[in-house]
């Protein structure tokens, strides 16, 4: 059985910025152990000689010309904003007072 503790899950939830409830943490630590056991099988065949594939297509950077062209108006871009002020997204404080 994969060794994943409730504290591990709590730390992952913190990293993922999800304020999980105690009961969710309990439940998920049990579920994750089962799921990780099932998916750990990939290690059986992932030999050092096998190159990884991150994407089905050979990816390359695609550049466009640096030209002015029509885009969303400020009103459109802000249309879904939870809060706005002076044509800008209004967000909670990010930095401390200092």
């Amino acid at each position, binding site marked *: 059985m994969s060794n*994943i503790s409730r504290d*591990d*899950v709590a730390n*992952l*939830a913190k*990293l*993922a*910025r*999800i*304020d*999980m*409830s105690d009961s*969710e943490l309990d439940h*998920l630590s049990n*579920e*994750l152990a*089962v*799921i*990780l056991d*099932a*998916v*750990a*099988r*990939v*290690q*059986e*065949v*992932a*030999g050092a000689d*096998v*190159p*990884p*594939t*991150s*994407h*089905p*297509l050979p*990816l390359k*950077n*695609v550049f*466009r010309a640096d030209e002015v062209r029509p885009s*969303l108006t400020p009103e*459109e*871009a802000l*249309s*879904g*904003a*939870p*809060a706005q002020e002076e044509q800008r*997204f209004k*967000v*909670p*404080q*990010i930095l401390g007072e200092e």
Partner: protein
Amino acid sequence: MIQKTAIEMAAALKAGEISSVELTQAHLDQITKVDSQVHAFLHIDTEGAISQARAIDEKRNSGVELPPLAGVPLALKDVMTQKGIPTTCGSKMLEGWRPPYDSTVVTRLKENGVVILGKTNMDEFAMGSSTENSAYGPTHNPWDLTRIPGGSGGGSSAALAAFEAPLAIGTDTGGSIRQPAAVTGTVGVKPTYGGVSRYGLVAFSSSLDQAGPCARTVLDAAYLHEAIGGYDKLDSTSINAPVPPVVAAAKDGNVKGMKIGVIKELQGDGYQPGVLKLFNESLELLAQQGAEIVEVSCKYFDYALAAYYLIAPSECSSNLARFDAMRYGMRVGSGSAEDVMNLTRQAGFGREVKRRIILGTYALSSGYYDAYYGSAQKVRTLISRDFENAFKLADVLVSPTAPTTAFKIGEKANDPIAMYLNDIATIPTNLAGIGGMSLPSGLAEEDGLPAGFQIMAPAMQDDRMYKVGSALEAALLAKWGQPILASAPKLGAK
């Protein structure tokens, strides 16, 4: 008229037998009649649809030559942005959000004169195989309202099966177009990765996500595929090549001399006997039309599900970081930005989405990255090689689409591993980036519910799926004497 195929509707429109406004209204009426039971739609755009239809009628009356699907209605999966129309992805996180732009798929639908009826239900952020993970309640399978319509695109498949729309758009990350098609007796195609633009498709797992056509016939799907497919400069992973000739292939349907490879690993244990029986009967019909059936082995497919449930959650944990309560979507609580993010993501995401974000965060964390995400990427290579080798022996590969027919709503909701097994036959194609189609193979003898036949083709050879699909569909139609959906129970007003 609503029971006809999209192409028959298009012909009636062209001949002036019906107007697009009348056709659209007939579908809106059917939605009013049956959707309280089916719950295929999250949003119905009555006014927008009628006004689009009216515009098409006016163009047609003025003698303008219109594209083939002009005036035909369609249901859009709620993962695609449509300007000004609510787009929720089945999540509370995006409740009430009206995107300020059209996805490329929507732009092309509009250019083709396709009338968009509304947005269809789905598992939250396309994570699921049953549509039970929608924050807005499950969709019910028109064949049996106590059963799931597949997922994540269960709203689109149910809308087709309930004659609420003749065409629909789906997206397929691990089977979300094909498995819903299989369990509702409809047709669904996941094109080659990069074949249809992802611009405006809310991302779940970017290296796997692919939009595609859903319909009731192979030919209808082909027309929709041609309408939405092709290069888009707004998607840097879009393939810059012509759309494969899918309509011509669907019209041709000649499989004489084609080699059809049966994948040994995608049958046997875990597959419902009635589903396998229908699969074998379909093979027999293809053989009778001159196709050569060969068996192929893809030995690493046994690892595909495990690789998928590391890669998709890893990419999702990164993609869904954008839901940070700052620029759009839900915002909950007060305090620091971090507090607000924590509270919003807790309130906005459902159980399966959280489960996958945490799993992905784990698989990508330092110390575990190589063992989990890194190993899964290597399995992805092995699966692509399996396909390459198999396509040396066969023109297309085939399997049952899903191991079982539709299960009961609630039956697997508390067992994630059992739920994930639904996608065992569809996931390999997403990992390799190739195309896959599902079409109905018949009704399983155990339960009288539809099963799906899956056809897979090499990258950018999507036309081969349509050729084989069309041949099988014609043979099955001749055998049954009527389309499969003619055997579905009639949904009445409630």
